[in-house]
């Protein structure tokens, strides 16, 4: 029997003894994490070892990784344009009783905030995309319009803010790829028709069974700990409290307390800026998470696999996403120049990189919109304001092209028109409402200790540090972030067996559970063969990462 950590407690205990030699096994389904019975067909390869399900026991923190990686040599590549806010073992949830008590002890406010959004870098929200002449996919991308007016949708701003607050408060992951049972969100591909596809199918929240061409089955744990899947029977997270949640359980849905309106602006604020994309394939920078490497996933095990061509390659299997993805700020003009200069970022001839124009809200332009709140407790109002104006160093990213540096924005609360709601006595119909224009005093990160529910700090310190590292806005630093190129020693390079692997005397690791620290060692040893093995090693060895990025603070 394999014991699972508390984070996996919904999976209970799963008997894995039968997995050793591919004996069919059907784990007991549970409500929160139904077990997938997915049976994809296997490409011309085989899994030498059956993957056992394990939980991410005591997930490592960013601090631990920093410690392990702080002395890595600096190489000549740019850091990857995104990084992860590490997930914890379980989200921070609050019971309905705690929330009720919290509301009773807080002043409740209704009203609206007048917000000014300033584009720090050009902002693009995709409207009409016009196809180009043969050979290219997009000729230009227009800015989104509503009723013939240019606008940044309130839904985009809400999505950005909700994602930030979910990370900051270690809340649920409210949006994640899922498919109806039994299909996993990330399917194992048919090797006959898609040799480049996934060898290991996996899901966001449920355990996935993969059936291989030799008839053997393997299981892989979920990308996200199931406790991070929104479930109102377990309580509520801060984001759901603010932005609402629909629950299938009777009476457990919660209406939003924050309403974000569209931000309209005039055509004069627009200007064309270059965007890049790769032809004949998915959008450049589009996510392609795989359990067969350690780019998105925490290292789990090393397997050996035979490809359709009969080659032996090593498969570095990961299990569980590193965390929530956010993009670094950077100068988009320099970034696009970097990609379009083939000397620096070699392009694949079959899938060449091309440039197109996107209409963007020009940098330094300002757009105003309103955020309304309804009976929002003071601490939550402070949190909302803090998240809109997150101190000196942190700025948000919004819209399309974040990976190239587009969409860096700054929010200023220009005005707050609020009234304090009566809690115990009803609204006095005989009186005019007491609206008050309030000069908003920005809350600072230093005051975060005061933001509490039931004596628990609302803000997750570790997440804040992670966010501060990624979303730090320091234009003078001029760090360039770019994807690893499509060239040798990067993603397209296999680790061959025995040529690349055996000389390193790592055979003993094959098929056995790997510690995260050992995984870094393996990636270090394979660096000269392939650099894009371990996400955090790649980042730590990137130019200016340790010196600047690793030292960023809120």
């Amino acid at each position, binding site marked *: 029997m394999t014991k699972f950590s508390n984070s996996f407690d919904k999976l209970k205990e799963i008997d894995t003894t039968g997995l050793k030699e591919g004996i069919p096994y059907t784990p007991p389904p549970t409500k929160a994490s139904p077990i997938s019975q997915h049976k994809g067909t296997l490409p011309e390869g085989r899994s030498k070892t059956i993957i056992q399900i394990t939980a991410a026991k005591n997930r490592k923190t960013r601090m631990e990784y920093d410690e392990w990686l702080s002395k890595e040599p600096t190489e000549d590549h740019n850091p990857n344009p995104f990084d992860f806010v590490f997930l914890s073992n379980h989200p921070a949830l609050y019971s309905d009783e705690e929330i009720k008590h919290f509301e009773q002890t807080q002043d409740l406010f209704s009203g609206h905030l007048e917000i000014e959004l300033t584009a720090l870098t050009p902002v693009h929200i995709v*409207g009409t995309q016009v196809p180009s002449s043969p050979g290219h996919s997009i000729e230009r991308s227009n800015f989104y319009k509503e009723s013939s007016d240019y606008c940044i949708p309130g839904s985009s701003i809400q999505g950005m803010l909700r994602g930030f607050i979910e990370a900051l408060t270690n809340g649920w992951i409210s949006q994640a790829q899922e498919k109806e049972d039994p299909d996993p969100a990330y399917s194992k591909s048919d090797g006959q028709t898609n040799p480049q596809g996934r060898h290991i199918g996996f899901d966001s929240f449920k355990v996935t069974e993969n059936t291989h061409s030799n008839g053997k089955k393997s299981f892989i744990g979920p990308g996200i700990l199931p406790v991070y899947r929104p479930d109102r029977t377990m309580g509520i997270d801060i984001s759901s409290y603010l932005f609402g949640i629909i629950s299938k359980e009777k009476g457990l849905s919660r209406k939003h307390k*924050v309403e974000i309106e569209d931000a309209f602006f005039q055509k004069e604020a627009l200007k064309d800026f270059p965007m890049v994309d790769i032809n004949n394939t998915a959008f450049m920078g589009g996510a392609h998470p795989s359990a067969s490497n350690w780019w998105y996933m925490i290292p789990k095990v090393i397997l050996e696999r035979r490809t359709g061509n009969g080659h032996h390659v090593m498969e570095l299997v990961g299990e569980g996403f590193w965390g929530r993805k956010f993009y670094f700020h950077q100068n988009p003009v320099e970034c696009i120049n970097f990609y379009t200069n083939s000397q620096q970022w070699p392009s694949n001839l079959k899938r060449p990189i091309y440039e197109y124009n996107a209409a963007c809200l020009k940098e330094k332009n300002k757009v105003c919109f309103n955020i309304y709140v309804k009976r929002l407790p003071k601490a939550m109002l402070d949190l909302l304001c803090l998240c809109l104006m997150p101190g000196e160093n942190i700025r948000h990213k919004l819209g399309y092209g974040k990976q190239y540096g587009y969409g860096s924005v700054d929010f200023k609360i220009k005005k707050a028109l609020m009234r304090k709601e009566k809690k115990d006595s009803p609204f006095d119909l005989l009186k005019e409402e007491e609206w008050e224009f309030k000069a908003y005093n920005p809350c600072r990160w230093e005051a975060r200790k005061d933001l509490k529910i039931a004596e628990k700090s609302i803000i997750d310190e570790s997440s804040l540090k992670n966010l501060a590292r990624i979303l730090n806005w320091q234009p003078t630093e001029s760090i360039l972030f770019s994807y690893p190129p499509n060239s040798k020693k990067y993603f397209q390079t296999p680790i061959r067996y025995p040529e690349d692997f055996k000389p390193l005397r790592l055979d003993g690791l094959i098929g056995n559970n790997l510690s995260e620290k050992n995984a870094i060692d393996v990636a270090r040893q394979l660096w000269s063969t392939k650099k894009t093995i371990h996400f955090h090693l790649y980042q730590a060895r990137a130019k200016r990462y340790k010196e600047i990025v690793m030292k960023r603070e809120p």
Partner: protein
Amino acid sequence: MTEEHRQLKGGTFQNRYLIKATLTAKTPFHIGDGETITRKGMRDEEKNKDHQINSVATDGKGRAYIPGSSLRGALRDWLCLSYDGMTEKLEEARKKMDEIRDDKNKNQQEKDDAIVDFVMKNSSALERIFGTQQNEGKLEVWDAYCTSKVETNIDEYGQLCFWHKDRITYVAKSVAIDPETGTAEEGKLYNFELVPAGAAFEVNFSAQNLSENEPALLIEVLNGFNHPTNPITIGAMTKLDLGKFCISDFKIHHLDSMNIDKWREIAKTTTDIRAGYDIIADSRFEIKKEELKTLNKATLPAPKFVAKNVENWLLNLETPLVIRNGTFAGWNNSAKPKTRNYKMEFKWNATPQEMVTSFAQVGDLYHSLEIKGDKVVPYYHVPSSSIRGSLRAWTIEHLLPKEWWNMEDKIKESDFPNNKPDYLDNIISLFGFAIEGAKKGISKEYTKAGRLTIQVDRFGSNQTSPDVDGADWKGGNDFGPSNAERQIKPRNPLDRITHAAKEGGLHNFLEFSKGQKLSLAIEILKPDKPEQGVFDQKLLEHWKSEINSGEIRFGGLTGIGRGRAKVITRTVIESVKKEAINDKI
């Protein structure tokens, strides 16, 4: 009034009137038959059962009709409410009639004669025309059958509101929103059949022994359907602006001592299938328009003061408004991969098969049907229930303690009247309330009809295609109703881990565009208690203020700023005396 003038129906023959007219629905209506039906295509797949639909009364052919009793009841109520003296005098005089019955000095015939005499002398016009337990009314109201012929076929997919050609009905939905959760309240989603606006019915009223001013009064009452401020309504949910009609094409036939010989002559010789009094429908008995003027209107009772406040509010949509009806139109927004809004196609009434093969779904806006010629035609509008629901939710949330937001449960469990919150009675008086299964006495005390009626005019725009950036349409599109400005709104949530578009998360829906005007007529019947009137007025003030400050929003998706409006004009209409509109016949 002479005895002759006070004739009852069964007295010596004086005259007989037959009034034929056309009653046309101005708004949809629902006269329920107390049953539920199912409709092909309306199914709850999750629960694996058909949706139950509250059905309307139908005739022997299965077509919606207006039962004579419903029509008669509506006329009686209206007459009672609209004229002075239209009271139930005989109810008050019951004791006197009991004395006559108990009079041991009279035999049965003498008692009967004395009762008839008493009724003739003491009854009101209301009682003589509509009858009481003592006397049959002079007015007969026949069942009204639908004369509309509609060729539009049955709809099984929902876009045409599950229109049923043979029943002449479509299906509407109503849901109560829980103020705490913002979602549909459990067990409060209703489906009900509606007969569309434009449906025409042949109505027949016959009356015998009408005396003095009663013919004029009857015609006055029938014209109550056309009354500009206080029309007769029929059926359920009239507070939600259902059940309004107009009456037209009057033909009034008359038989009395002057032409009864003609009637006898025709009755002897006719080969017409009509017989007896039906022969009056012959044109030879029709009263000419000029003769109508001779009807005695001089002694009509005085119209009552219309005891209600009416306000017209003109709202501007400051942000888009989303009121869904749960159905989808088809949209194909690109002819190539990696493009958007390029060579688009739109099919408002796409079949499920076409949805799979050719289109993506676009959530449609609330719409209803009306009959035009031989077709049913959809039109977009804001249902009165949406406006009323938002106002009610705000009122409950702000005037009652939170534990009282679920009024029904709280009333059931509470120990009345000890812990009743302020304003509870005021809210119930204004909005009305229905409660079942409460303690004895509670149901009766707290079940009220309500005094608030909100009428929402249709949008007056004319926009063929929905607004979407690019407007690059292929030919041959079916854009659906064009009476509202609307736009296609995409939403595409991103996976929080990968920042990729969530598979299956991309969805599009229509919204009523901002900048459009919404015209509301708010009617509040005057209450008995003055303090309730003060409450009503103060509440109206606050509603306006709260709408303008964005605290009251309408429709869905308010979390992304939808449904904010501004009251740009508020016209308080003086309560008016009922106008005599007899001359308009």
